[in-house]
């Protein structure tokens, strides 16, 4: 395998494996938020704020993978 090919593989694998965890996490956060909404509809704004914050944290992990992938690709 040439260095160039290894770089492409590393980029693709970094982002592909790196987003698995956050994807599951965001799905779980969303499902739990909907559950909470169904149980307690008047707390909608509080639930929405907390949900968006939690999603941002889960997404940050995917962003780390993305930054690493970009560094592999462009540096």
């Amino acid at each position: 395998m040439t260095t160039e090919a290894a770089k492409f593989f590393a980029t693709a694998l970094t982002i592909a494996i790196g987003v698995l965890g956050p994807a599951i996490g965001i799905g779980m956060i969303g499902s739990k938020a909907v559950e909470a909404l169904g149980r307690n509809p008047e707390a909608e704004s509080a639930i929405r704020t907390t949900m968006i914050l939690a999603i941002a944290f889960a997404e940050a992990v995917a962003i780390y993978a993305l930054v690493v992938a970009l560094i592999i690709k462009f540096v």
Partner: protein
Amino acid sequence: MEEHSKPHISIRAEKIFHILGFDVTNSLFLSFFVFLIFAIGALIYHHQSQSENKGKFYYLVNFIIKNLYNLFYSVLREKTDYFFPLLSSFFLFILFQNWFGLLPGVGSVLIKVKEHNELISVPLFRANTADLNTTLALAVISVFLSQVFAIKFLGLKAYINKFYRLKDPMSFFIGTLEIVSEISKMVSFAFRLFGNIFAGEVLLVIIAFLIPVLASFPFLILEVFVGFIQALVFSMLTTVFISVAIAKHH
């Protein structure tokens, strides 16, 4: 693929000129304008708050600041007044830096710069938060200040007792882990903000490169939202860390 057909993506901010031996990068250059607009806005607000007939601008800023205050109040309660200037400046600074990076012309206006005896064209402007130096500086300020506030509110002895206690030998191991986690907070702060904004820039460039007309518009709206959320996340996390740091240990 030929060199000129690739979109221009650079992880680091590029130097555009020198002042007194200091390199001025394109992200720093844009942040000067943000500073300027910030300062002018603050002066107008101050002027209007002193005068008899207050304008719409005054009420708009008041509305924003009141909502921010309520947001931080939900975490810090009666200590909000003390921390509010720091936290709201974090929020507004990051918000404006994020949004200025989305203005038309940022990243697309190129100038020619000489580097290693070679003339290359680099963007004149770049979002300030899409530069790792800025986000790392903000992260260091945030984490360092939470330690300072902890010492101020708890006293030096109680602060050290949070990490190491003589009675408890296990705490020498756990305390070291705590110190490592404080340092990793800095890294995660810096990379979260940098990664989100930089990834947004790359996304916009790539989409505009694939489909030149109109396709990047929904992503632009998304980036406006992401910029807001990241400013909120940064300031809320700082709030939570400060409130944890100044809480009495038991």
